[in-house]
């Protein structure tokens, strides 16, 4: 293990620590954070106001005329659309989101490791090609993927993949997982590649000299070192999938719809019940918040990974 890069990055970190922790910077950060939070606070306050108040006056008037009710939450919790309830959609969202966040990370880790540390011809071209796929918009994938899922694949008269169901409005989460995994892979590969590639070559060489194969290096060296990046990417992907409505409505039935579908329906066909969205969004945001707070200590480290390389 060489000293230089680490010492250098420590120096940079120290300098930036000094700049960022000056009282002015702290004050600025607090003010920015406060301004940033105001809309969320307004939403939160609104969610406890009676419907008539929400529709007729701004949330800040709450402090002058406080009137608190849990009615919005009760009404949201009892809301039923296309035969499903909010609690069911929350469960569906989790069932969709966890695998859809974990699958791309697992696959991308393997790809990224191979591209970063296995010497084979064309790996740089491959890396660029994978990342270039990032420019393909998700909307372009919908029809081809649906055809694949419904029709399956037959190569030279042999059925390679039978397809999921003749009717996409039947059930099944696999289509959603696969779609999210596919669309996430380019960015996941890119981020994890950068994390793995920044491991000093000397460390890898030392491990090889000690007799470790690629499998051992991947599991015992690369993986632990990439945890901050994995965690921060997991947050990204989790939030992205959690907030997705398009993929879910195209690829699942109403019975498997995620929370975003119920949120979209909550305001009513003519948007007359929009005040319910205040409570609905807070119910929907609880789980992502938990995930964020659980992983946030990795998040900052992951975002800074490579940023302080000097």
């Amino acid at each position, binding site marked *: 293990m060489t000293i230089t890069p680490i010492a250098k990055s420590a120096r940079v970190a120290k300098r930036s620590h000094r700049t960022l922790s000056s009282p002015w910077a702290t004050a600025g950060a607090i003010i920015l954070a406060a301004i940033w939070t105001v809309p969320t606070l307004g939403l939160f306050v609104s969610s406890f106001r009676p419907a008539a108040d929400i529709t007729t006056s701004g949330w800040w008037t709450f402090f002058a005329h406080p009137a608190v009710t849990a009615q919005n939450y009760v009404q949201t919790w009892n809301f039923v*659309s296309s035969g499903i309830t909010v609690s069911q959609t929350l469960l569906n969202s989790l069932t969709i989101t966890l695998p859809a966040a974990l699958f791309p990370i697992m696959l991308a880790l393997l790809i990224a490791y191979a591209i970063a540390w296995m010497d084979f011809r064309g790996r740089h071209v491959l890396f660029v090609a994978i990342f270039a796929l990032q420019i393909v918009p998700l909307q372009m994938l919908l029809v081809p*993927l649906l055809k694949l899922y419904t029709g399956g694949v037959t190569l030279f008269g042999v059925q390679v993949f039978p397809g*999921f*169901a*003749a*009717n996409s409005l039947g059930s*099944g989460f696999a289509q959603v997982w696969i779609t999210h995994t596919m669309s996430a892979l380019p960015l996941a590969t890119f981020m994890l590649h950068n994390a793995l590639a920044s491991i000093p070559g000397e460390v890898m060489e030392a491990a090889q000299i000690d007799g470790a194969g690629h499998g051992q290096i991947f599991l015992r060296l690369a993986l632990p070192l990439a*945890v901050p990046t994995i965690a921060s990417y997991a947050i990204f992907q989790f939030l992205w999938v959690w907030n997705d409505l398009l993929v879910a409505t195209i690829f699942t039935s109403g019975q498997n719809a995620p929370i975003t579908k119920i949120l979209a329906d909550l305001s009513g066909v003519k948007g007359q019940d929009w005040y319910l969205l205040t409570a609905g969004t807070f119910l929907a945001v609880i789980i992502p918040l938990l995930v964020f707070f659980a992983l946030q200590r990795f998040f900052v480290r992951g975002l800074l990974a490579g940023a302080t390389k000097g």
Partner: protein
Amino acid sequence: MAKHYGILGLAGATALALALAGCSTPTTSNTAGTTGAPATTSAPATVTIYGTPTGDEGNQWEASWKSWAAANNITIQYTGDRDFTTNISTKIQGNALPDIAVFPQPGLMQAVIGTGKVQALDATTLAEVTKNFSADWQKYGTANGKQYAVPLDASAKGYIWYSPAAFKTWGVTVPTTWDDLMTLTATIQSKVGGPVWCAGFNSGDATGWPGTDQLAEYVLSASGGDVYDKWVAGDVKFTDQPIADAFTALGKILLDPRYVNAGFGDVASINSTPFGDVANALAGGQCALTNQATFLQASFATAKTAAGTTPKVAQDGDIWAFMMPPVAGKASVVGGGDFAVAFTDSPAVQKVMAYLASGDYANSLITVPGATFITANQGVDVTKQADPLLASAMKTLVDPATAFRFGAGDAMPSVVQQAWWKGTVDWINGTDQTTVLNQIQSAWADV
């Protein structure tokens, strides 16, 4: 390092568990929902229906067929999607078809029928549709001489809302012809000494649409279905006499500062008034007449009368409505409706389609608690509709003599519709009528 292994191990185990749990689901339920399942299956058949209404409206739809489905051993799985009109195209291209789709407008449905994936109605359903619906309604679901669609519910535009109490005070009655309406307008104007009509055309990106509806109502009433159809198809131009006459006739109300915009300001304030706000002016007594569809009824729930109470919508109450009086004698309605088409050729689906076309279904639909459905199904028992306004709308709709057409704007290409919205706004703002008509007509060149 051991700790990291813990996290990853747990994560991997969860993923695997979920993968197994999730993968087992499709196999079980797919067998039930498979399209084109053999006719011999005796287990409850599942029929999927895909449509636009969600939430309460969607639940009301589900309630309308629930007891029939249970009695006939059919499970109907309804999925509502606000983005139905966008998503149905994707699903059709991807061959991910519901058994039955319910289209909110005939234009898109005709395009979908054109893909060849829609099943023509079977003999039983066809007989029901022929028996229960007027030729105007049947025509929207016809292509290549075959009938594909079953009309479900309907909506009617062209209601003129007024205050029965105020009419009594002024000693005026509901007009029966367009000329009567103009006389009435002048009479009320002389009694109140200010504007009579209120109108709100503001609707965000779609500002102007309430005006296009009023114009369509006038054209259908004054010139009849043939001219209307040719106009929608682009064969009668906006600059042609029947359309220009309609603009002139409506302009006698909407562009006259003596008659508009009661409760809001001058003529130009029509463009800035949100379309639902006219309910407040009408309830508050500032405005005597306004033209809007039946859905305006919902806006009165939050409006207040001059006395500060919620207005009572009834023939002898604070607010009521009459249908736009005919210009040329014959009753006509501009409105909308939903149509069901089947993608799957199976006995269960055909059974559902036949039921949806029946008079029994129409009766079930209009009696769903809390709902405000109306239908053009002539097999309906109008007396079962408790709401008098909806009952009167339905009476007009099921009358075989009534000419029915969809809103012209919705049926035209969207570039033309948008040009027409914009033209309506310019027209209200005072742009000369000929210029406006030329401008709207020129949009047909971009189709």
